[in-house]
């Protein structure tokens, strides 16, 4: 039943796509109502699925897709497609459907009157379909398939206004950068498949536990699979596509860049978490940390409302990845969920502002909008507080868990790893600062562009309803009854930490010695065997314990840094105690470095893209000149020497690409020359020939 419903959820958006792409133009209002309605139905069904799925339930359905029979030296080759509904996918279903429905609804006004309106809704449909595919799958291959489809559909959506150069480049960049990550992902899948002979998560985990995939290959597989996440979730060094992707329509940004596509990477790591070795996890943690930090520093100086949000997204994704890397599994996934809601709210809010300002995106030209756009302002502020980690918001809960996790991790492993919590707190502080900077510059102060300001009015209902819904969801109550501790909330219970399946030797020290118990504890069978649940609980808690200890210090610190960030924002932009420009002038090198996004784009464009293009030109030259004319030089000489005859057939020399060609021509020329037309010369040759033969064969 749940399987059927989930299939329905999966395929309804595809249906929406098919109807709209082929018949959309003929439907009333070009069918936007259809897409929206379908998504709302999906949302309802998703809630049904969530409510009917227990924390340890696993509903699985598989279908044999490819069967290559019994391969010699390998065994049966069966590649299956499968659906898996468990706690993770049930939650993600709701998240995806919710944000997608919000984006659909929001777009009915925002995109109204666009020339390709029906196509837009069709694309939204197929995008949702692809995203749901990632969520529902039970194996890596199918995940890769939908992963790529998400890439395609995001390409179409980002480049929706392909008439303009910006979206063209942005969409191409997004796809190619994602592809680079995907190559890694695919290589990781290949490693896993070669060693475990399966794509299905559960079988892979079982095989790894049985020791089929260990050592360097295991770590490599983990890191390479994570490469997919680096691409999709815009992690350093592949984060560059996401800010550019803001060229797409704003609801698309909300859908893709807040809650779904970029979350796919985090979801992937969550799914494959048990097979990550300690080295891989450390790698993941540092990538997340670097991403979180770099993009936070960049976000401070950006002036485009969407760019600020984009970098904040990248930064928050870094937090989630980092959380997973340090082992704070629940926290990472929790932040994914909470962030989806308030970031979508922020993006849609930004969309509302842009809509109101008639496609003005530069915050330096805004200001004072809170009077005219009341609802937008309030919802935006609510979401900003959640993002900054102000108490009583969902963001506070999830971010606090992550920070506690990093502290616990640093405490357990020690050494250099203390850099993780330090930079994480710093980034959290910056987050609070730039978000409030954004709020102040946009909604407070004096309007800088009077003319535009005069025309501003509050957005219509279809746009504000999603804002309200999403901002309400940023309150703590939806996730935990305790506003300061997420661990006692339903979420933490619903998504308990999972245990790793990697061999002992490749775990963190604090993970060691727990395998047997934990794995048994996870399966219901263990209870009947009479294992002591208390013992399990005890072993389980090596990391949990540390987190527990780190909880209050982390909360305090995080409150402090968030407060500092907000305070600074007030000081700079509300009270005008300091001049932002003056400070920027003082630290100009740092400022420009941040403003120019650490020069990543310039580096990639200048070194990698240019280099590649030069390489291709070199190859073209090589192909035309060298391979196709190894002997054009020789041919040239021949041509010179025969220029008198004027009979040289160019096409021949060009045509035979090998040495033989011109050698043949050359000898032909020589032999021609001896055909002088004088009979006596011929006779002399004959005699010469006979004598030559005699000398050659005399000795034989």
């Amino acid at each position, binding site marked *: 039943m749940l399987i059927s419903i989930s299939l329905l959820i999966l395929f309804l958006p595809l249906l929406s796509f098919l109807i709209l792409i082929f018949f959309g133009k003929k439907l009333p209002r070009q069918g936007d109502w259809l897409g929206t309605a379908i998504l709302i139905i999906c949302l309802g069904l998703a809630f049904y699925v969530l409510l009917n799925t227990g924390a340890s339930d696993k509903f699985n359905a598989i279908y044999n897709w490819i069967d290559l029979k019994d391969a010699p030296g390998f065994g049966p080759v069966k590649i299956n497609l499968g659906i898996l509904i468990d706690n993770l996918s049930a939650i993600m279903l709701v998240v995806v459907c919710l944000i997608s429905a919000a984006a659909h609804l929001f777009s009915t006004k925002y995109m109204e009157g666009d020339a390709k309106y029906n196509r837009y809704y069709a694309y939204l449909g197929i995008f949702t379909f692809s995203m749901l595919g990632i969520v529902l799958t039970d194996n890596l291959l199918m995940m890769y398939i939908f992963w790529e489809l998400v890439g395609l559909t995001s390409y179409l959506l980002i480049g929706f206004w392909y008439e303009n150069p910006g979206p063209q480049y942005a969409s191409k960049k997004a796809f190619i950068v994602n592809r680079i990550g995907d190559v890694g992902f695919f290589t990781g899948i290949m490693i896993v498949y070669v060693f475990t002979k399966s794509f299905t998560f559960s079988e892979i985990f079982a095989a790894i536990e049985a020791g089929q995939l260990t050592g360097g290959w295991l770590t490599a597989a983990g890191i390479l699979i994570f490469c997919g996440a680096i691409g999709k979730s815009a992690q350093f060094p592949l984060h560059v596509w996401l800010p550019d992707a803001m060229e797409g329509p704003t609801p698309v940004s909300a859908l893709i860049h807040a809650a779904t596509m970029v979350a796919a990477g985090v979801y992937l790591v969550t799914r494959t978490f048990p097979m990550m070795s300690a080295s891989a996890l450390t790698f993941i943690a540092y990538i997340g940390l670097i991403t979180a930090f770099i993009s936070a520093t960049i976000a401070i100086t950006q002036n485009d409302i969407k760019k600020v949000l984009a970098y904040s997204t990248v930064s928050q994704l870094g937090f989630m990845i980092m959380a997973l890397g340090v082992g704070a599994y629940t926290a990472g996934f929790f932040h994914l969920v909470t962030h989806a809601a308030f970031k979508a709210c922020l993006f849609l809010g930004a969309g509302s502002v842009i809509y109101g300002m008639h496609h003005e995106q530069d915050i330096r030209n805004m200001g004072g909008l809170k009077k005219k756009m009341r609802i937008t302002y309030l919802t935006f502020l609510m979401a900003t507080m959640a993002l900054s980690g102000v108490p009583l918001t969902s963001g506070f809960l999830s971010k606090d868990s992550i920070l506690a996790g990093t502290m616990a991790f640093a405490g357990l492993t020690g050494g250099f790893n203390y850099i993780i919590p330090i930079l994480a707190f710093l980034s959290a502080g910056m987050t609070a600062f730039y978000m409030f900077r954004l709020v102040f510059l946009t909604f407070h102060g004096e309007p800088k562009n009077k003319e535009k300001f005069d025309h501003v009015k509050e957005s219509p209902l279809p746009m504000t309803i999603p804002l309200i819904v999403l901002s309400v969801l940023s309150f703590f109550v939806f996730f935990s009854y305790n506003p300061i501790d997420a661990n006692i909330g339903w979420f933490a219970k619903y998504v308990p930490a999972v245990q790793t399946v990697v061999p002992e030797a490749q775990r963190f020290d604090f993970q060691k010695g727990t395998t047997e118990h934990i794995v048994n504890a996870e399966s219901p069978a263990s209870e009947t065997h009479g294992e002591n649940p208390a013992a399990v609980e005890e072993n389980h808690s090596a990391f949990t314990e540390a987190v527990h200890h780190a909880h209050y210090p982390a909360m305090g610190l995080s409150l402090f840094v968030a407060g500092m960030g907000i305070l600074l924002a007030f000081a700079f932009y509300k009270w005008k105690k300091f001049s932002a420009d003056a400070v920027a002038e003082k630290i100009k090198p740092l400022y420009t470095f941040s403003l120019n996004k650490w020069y990543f784009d310039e580096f990639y464009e200048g070194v990698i893209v240019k280099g590649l293009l030069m390489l291709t030109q070199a190859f073209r030259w090589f192909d035309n000149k060298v391979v196709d004319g190894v002997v054009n030089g020789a041919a040239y000489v021949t041509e010179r020497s025969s220029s008198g*005859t004027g*009979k040289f*057939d160019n096409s*021949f020399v060009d*045509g*035979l690409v090998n040495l*033989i060609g011109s050698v*043949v*021509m050359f*000898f*032909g*020329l020589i*032999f*021609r020359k001896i*055909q002088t*037309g004088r*009979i006596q010369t*011929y*006779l002399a*040759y*004959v005699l*010469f*020939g*006979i004598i*030559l*033969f*005699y000398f*050659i*064969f*005399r000795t*034989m």
Partner: protein
Amino acid sequence: MLTQQILDGLSKFYPETILSVTILVIVFVELFFKKKTRVSGWIAMAGLAAAMLFTFLQVNIPAQTIFFQMVAVDPFSYFFKVLLILSGFLIVLFTFLSDEIRSSEFKTQEYYALLIALTLGGFLMASSVNLLMMYLALELSSLSSYVLAGYFKKSNRSSEAALKYVIYGGVSSGLMLFGISLIYGICGSLDMFAISAYLSANPVNLITLLIAIFLMLAGFGYKISAVPFHFWTPDVYEGSPMPVTALLSVSSKAAGFAMLIRFFLVAFQNAGHPTITTEGLHQYITLPGLHWPEVIAVIAVATMTLGNVVAIWQDNLKRLLAYSSIAQAGYMLLAFVVVSPQGISAMLTYLAVYLFMNLGAFFAAILISNKYKTENIEEMKGIGYRSPLLCVSMAVFMLSLSGIPMTAGFIGKFYIFSALINNGYIWLAIIGLMNSVVSLYYYIKILKNMFLIRPQGDTGAVSFGAGYSVLLLALAIPTIVLGIFFGPLTKFAEYSVQIFGLK
């Protein structure tokens, strides 16, 4: 006893006798029908037909020698006789249909007489087993061809061709004769079997023998236009009337090959007694110390390579065909290197196939020069659209000459390379194949001009009489059919390899 032998010999000499009579009749008739030029042509055809008939009667005759071991009657000579008559027959028809000859103010009677004489010379070349007989036969065919080459007395080109031919031929046959005289001195006989017997029984001065062989090779090489004795070929081919060129390139060459094969195999290989070696291959025994197959191999490679690489440069169709026929001779010589019945039968197969495709190519060239008044390939642009049948046939001949499958030429090459590979001469096979790839270029060049370039200027269709088309098809269809059903032909060739179980 003596008379009996002569009479017995004569009874197996009907084809040759008929040809001789035909020559006389033509010369005689000439006295009465001064103006009626076709008559002698018809007589020639009748004579050839009769000779063919009597040749066919010899099909199952046991291999033997007649006239005191001067001439052999065996399947081998039978094969060449059929080939030569077919070729002679077709050349007569070419002559009928050639504007070039028809428009010349000369009487054509002795032309046909000479043609028959050349064919007769070829008959004897293919069947002589005595070096003297061989030399005489060679001279008979050569002398006729000198005259034929210079048949257009008023034409500078034709006269020049004749002069070059006669001087070149004279020197070559002189060299050959000197070589024969040396062999006579060494072995004390001119009978090939006797030579063979003497050589296998007595040690001889190999150096002298080698010199003798090379001098004789000059004679053979000139006849088959093998490098380095080929120099006359392009000039004479270009200067001669086109039907004569065709005749030289097929009849004369085939006869030369027959002579070459017989001489080397009988005199130096003990071909009378083929032996089965341990590997199960049928092989002739090579006389100790003589490596003539290597000599042939070098000549073969040089011949086809030179023919091909120079042909690439040609714009004159006749000259191109001249070089192409040099190259073709190279392929055939390749098969000779193997010195096994398999190789020889491959060679014969190729010769038979070559007859059709080369004569076809020449006939097409004749028709082109009839209608378009050109021999230059560059001026044949787009004529494929004006005379489709002609040019499609030409395409068939060209592709066959280059050895594309589904044409007879492929089968010929296929058998040759089979023989080479089977006997371990893989490098020769590779060289041969590379050569055929090179050759493709110039054959294709003709097709390119005919089909790939649209006609400029006059684009009207140019058609031919029914006779022309029939003859064209008569040459083109075997060229294709033999590419698909070649069983009978190869069977015939293999049968013909039994040179003579006598002596």
